[in-house]
């Protein structure tokens, strides 16, 4: 083990880690924005609304992300009309291509998580809300969403971790995020073991931090599940 080398390449690896986090955060947010309407379409009763959402989710969940990334990065240049359009300066950039591919991919997975969460809210509560004269929007805001968030959180945590791991694929389209930078340094120093181990440790640390953060959020939103401060002295009888 060449610890000197690890220490020397650490600044570069850490700045590459920031790019990895940037990729994850941006695609996570955009993916969530896209996932909500897709999930709502997916639970619609109208066939013409539901089928496109189903097809979208099915396609993006059943094909490798690498293929999706290559379709966006290499594939779009096949069409002269796209190359001539005002979007080309964006679609030419590997960074934005990665963001687009990751966003589309994670939105499909997130939509499926949201669908499961929305559908697992007990029907009786929705009926009760309707009986109280709530509009559909109010029903969503007061009854469905607060509960669905809590149900969706563990699945969503997994999805964010998967997204972090997928972000390594951006290195195949020349982006120097953590994996790309690691490969670059190895190409110069010929010390694969030291650098892969270091990169691996950074990834594990990120996974740990993500898990902790989401546990914290879950804790925040689940106060009603814990015994109140007044009753904490008397534990509930075991069910």
């Amino acid at each position, binding site marked *: 083990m060449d610890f000197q080398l690890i220490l020397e390449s650490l600044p570069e690896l850490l700045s590459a880690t920031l790019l990895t986090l940037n990729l994850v955060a941006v695609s996570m947010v955009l993916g969530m924005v896209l996932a909500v309407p897709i999930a709502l379409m997916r639970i619609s009763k109208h066939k013409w609304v539901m089928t496109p959402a189903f097809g979208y989710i099915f396609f993006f969940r059943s*094909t490798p992300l690498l293929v999706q990334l290559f379709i966006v990065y290499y594939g779009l240049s096949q069409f002269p009309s796209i190359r001539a359009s005002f979007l080309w300066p964006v679609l030419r950039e590997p960074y934005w291509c990665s963001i687009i591919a990751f966003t589309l991919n994670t939105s499909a997975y997130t939509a499926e998580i949201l669908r499961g969460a929305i559908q697992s809210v007990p029907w009786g509560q929705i009926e009760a809300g309707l009986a109280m004269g709530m509009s559909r929007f109010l029903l969503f805001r007061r009854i469905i969403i607060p509960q669905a968030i809590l149900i969706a959180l563990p699945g969503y945590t997994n999805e964010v971790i998967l997204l972090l791991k997928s972000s390594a694929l951006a290195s*195949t389209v020349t982006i120097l995020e953590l994996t790309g930078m690691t490969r670059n340094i190895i190409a110069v120093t010929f010390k694969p073991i030291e650098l892969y181990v270091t990169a691996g440790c950074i990834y594990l640390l990120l996974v740990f931090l993500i898990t902790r953060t989401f546990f914290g959020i879950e804790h925040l939103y689940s106060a009603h599940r814990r015994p109140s401060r007044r009753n904490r002295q008397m534990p509930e009888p075991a069910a």
Partner: protein
Amino acid sequence: MLDLHGFGNALAVGAWVTIKLMLASLGLGLILGLLGAGAKLSRFKTLRVVVDAITTMGRGLPELLTVLFIYFGAIVIVNNLAARLGYEGYIDIRPFGAGVVALGFSFGCYATDVFRASVLAVPKGQIEAAHAFGMHRILTFRRILLPQVWRFALPGLGNLFLVLQKDTALVSVIGLNELMKNTSAAVGYTKKPFTFYLVAAFIYLAIAIVTTLAIQMLERRASRGVRRA
């Protein structure tokens, strides 16, 4: 009609390599998963801790990094070991073997917990009953545990297998001529990236559909003795 410029054959050959890679990694992954579950359920604390650390690592690392590490990193370790043991030649790892090891390892890390949970889901009374009948450990495992563990584990393993399938594309990065790599070669000649990558996507989709159907069939077969509401 879709014009593949004579590359249809290359794609078919690539798809076949992808399928072989998938099945080989699945085999290795299942074995590793069973061993891992056995270790996690064992009486020895050291073993449990070590396996727990390994599976946490395998699940936290990007699959691409695992593939790269096995191909470029493990080769150095293996050769150092061989040199220390007095072997003078150079041991080469082929991309296929490295891919199988990397994907199998990753699958095995996830499968460990699927198997562990399935073993714990078998009621303890059944094991006690088997012992009371005088079955020894291997017979208990074969007749009582395995058929039920298989049934409990199938849905989880099915999901993992679908993930594994998509991860096979990563092995193209270390130069294995599977579907993805052959598609890229075709793109290099024809300059039709969209067409070819989309065709590749649909081939992966077709493989996924066949697998999903096969898993459903296996699940139905495994739970044929179970009464459903």
